[in-house]
């Protein structure tokens, strides 16, 4: 095994890790805000990929141009889910923790069924885009452009989320998270903040969906491939910590790829899960968790 091979696999793992991180970011955001784990997160990713695919199919527009529209669409969807379901789920008097788990789990199944109903069960993929099929050769290490672009977009999205965190809205988010009762007294509409939080979380996964659609396939079940990894990423980084999600995503991508290369490909997820458990033994709230 040459150094090039190891370097190549590491690069691939880190690029994938940036995607994991971006998918996890939305999940982490929603959790941090209102203590809700969205089990339909993978399905939001799936819908974003379908939205990208459908528009590409109908108009031939390059998926990169769809970043903003799809993010906005998912933002609207996130807000709608909050108002239609989550606001109710948060206001129940019994078993709030479990109600939210199973409401979002039910939503996941519903969305999968709806996707199959609407788009059929065929595997679809975007055939043409500016980036598709191009690859950079950096001294024997190959970096596919779509993955590279996805990694860069992921970093940019994290940058944007950090910036949002410093705005007035971000401070309102922070305040709402710290003390849900007190914010009402200083005139912050908690419902609105929560809805915006869901919108932002969904928009982040929407961006991940557009970038993934360029090089991945689309099917009603595609979300499941990413969902479990997203939960593990969030928990590893620490619930509610955006920075934690970024670091954990990179770590998981790297560990997954290295396990596949050095130990056994079919056990690569065992590698990433083992890392998660090991970290939890020493840091029960994840790498950067405070909650």
């Amino acid at each position: 095994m040459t150094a090039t091979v190891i370097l190549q696999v590491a690069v691939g793992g880190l690029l994938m890790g940036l995607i994991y991180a971006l998918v996890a970011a939305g999940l982490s955001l929603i959790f941090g805000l209102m203590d809700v784990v969205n089990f339909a997160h993978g399905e939001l990713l799936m819908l974003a990929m379908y939205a990208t695919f459908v528009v590409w199919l109908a108009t031939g527009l390059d998926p990169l141009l769809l970043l903003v529209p799809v993010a906005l669409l998912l933002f609207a969807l996130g807000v709608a889910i909050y108002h239609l379901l989550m606001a109710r789920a948060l206001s129940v008097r019994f078993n709030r923790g479990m109600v939210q788990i199973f409401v979002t789990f039910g939503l996941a199944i519903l969305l999968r069924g709806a996707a199959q109903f609407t788009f059929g069960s065929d595997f679809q993929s975007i055939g043409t885009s500016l980036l598709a099929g191009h690859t950079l050769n950096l001294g024997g290490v190959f970096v596919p452009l779509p993955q590279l672009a996805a990694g860069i977009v992921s970093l940019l999205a994290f940058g944007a989320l950090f910036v949002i965190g410093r705005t007035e809205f971000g401070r309102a988010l922070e305040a709402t998270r710290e003390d849900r009762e007190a914010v009402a007294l200083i005139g912050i509409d908690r419902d609105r903040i929560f809805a915006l939080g869901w919108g932002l979380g969904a928009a982040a996964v929407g961006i991940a969906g557009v970038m993934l659609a360029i090089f991945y396939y689309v099917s009603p079940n595609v979300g499941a491939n990413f969902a479990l990894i997203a939960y593990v990423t969030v928990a590893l980084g620490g619930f509610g910590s955006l920075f934690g999600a970024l670091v954990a995503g990179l770590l998981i991508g790297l560990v997954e790829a290295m396990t596949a290369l050095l130990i056994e490909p079919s056990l690569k997820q065992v590698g990433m899960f083992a890392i998660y458990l090991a970290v939890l033994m020493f840091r029960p709230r994840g790498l950067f968790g405070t909650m």
Partner: protein
Amino acid sequence: MDTSITRRRRLELLIGAVLLAVLAVLPLPIQDTYTRNLIIITVLFAGLAQAWNILGGYCGQISLSHALYFGVGAYVSTLLLTRAGIPPTIGMFAGGALGGLMALLVGWPCFRLSGHYYAIATVVVGEIFFLLALNWDWIGGATGINIPYRRSIGDSWLWLQFRIDKLPYHYAALAFAAVAWLVAWLIEGSRWGFVWRAVKDDPIAARSLAVRIFPSKMAAAAISGALTGMGGAIYAQYVGYIDPDSVLYGHLSILIPLPAVLGGVGTLWGPLVGAAVLIPLSELTRSYLGGSGRGVDLMIYGALIIVVALARPQGLASLIGVRVRAPRGLDSGADDARAA
């Protein structure tokens, strides 16, 4: 006060016995195999959900690794049968013992974690064992294990094999569900039951009362895991084929608690009611709408879960007058103004 509790508990036992009798004769007039199968799966899941309820409901630990204990039970009893010729009626106890042991093994590191960290850790542990089983050729790996009907033995209770007759499996599942229910009933009235309620409602207060939280969680895990393992052993005999996908896969870790959650978590009747509604609905929608290939069955099933969870957060059992206390569950401590 004390006597009214005793009276209520005696009444529960009486209702339980009547229900058992009703369920014992229920399939007799039904000749149709499909409906009998539906009842068996429903009863089995009522028992499994009750087993989960002991750890997830009464003890308040949202475990999402019950597929693991179920799978261990199924694999142990099946391997004892196919490799050593030990009858599954004996093997299921070995499967249960190992299921309980496995639950202790998972609980030992994971109980230190709180809330979502615990839930996701249990998912991950289950997934690790699933992947290992898939790659472990000695136990059949991905190919799974076939449990053939042995005509030389014929229909037999000892070997728990019946060619066409569904009734014996019904009684096996019913016995299992009854045991799970009885254990839950005993726990409700025991010192452990009080301890767990205390742990769930207020861990800090419980600790100050010098309650040893960790051992009590371990006890809940062992009982819950052992019962789930026995359920897995019965399932394996009933279906006649196991592979990691069907008895160890993570999806099952959601399906097992689902009836308890929708029926009423931490209640005696919740898992029963939940299973009685949920399992027939999911089976019937698949059987009569799934063939369309359009995903309509999934949409209905998903919508149903949402509606029940939102409309009856305390569980469907509350509709028939089961009193439900308000446990804080996952997010203990971080309560909401609206919840008050």
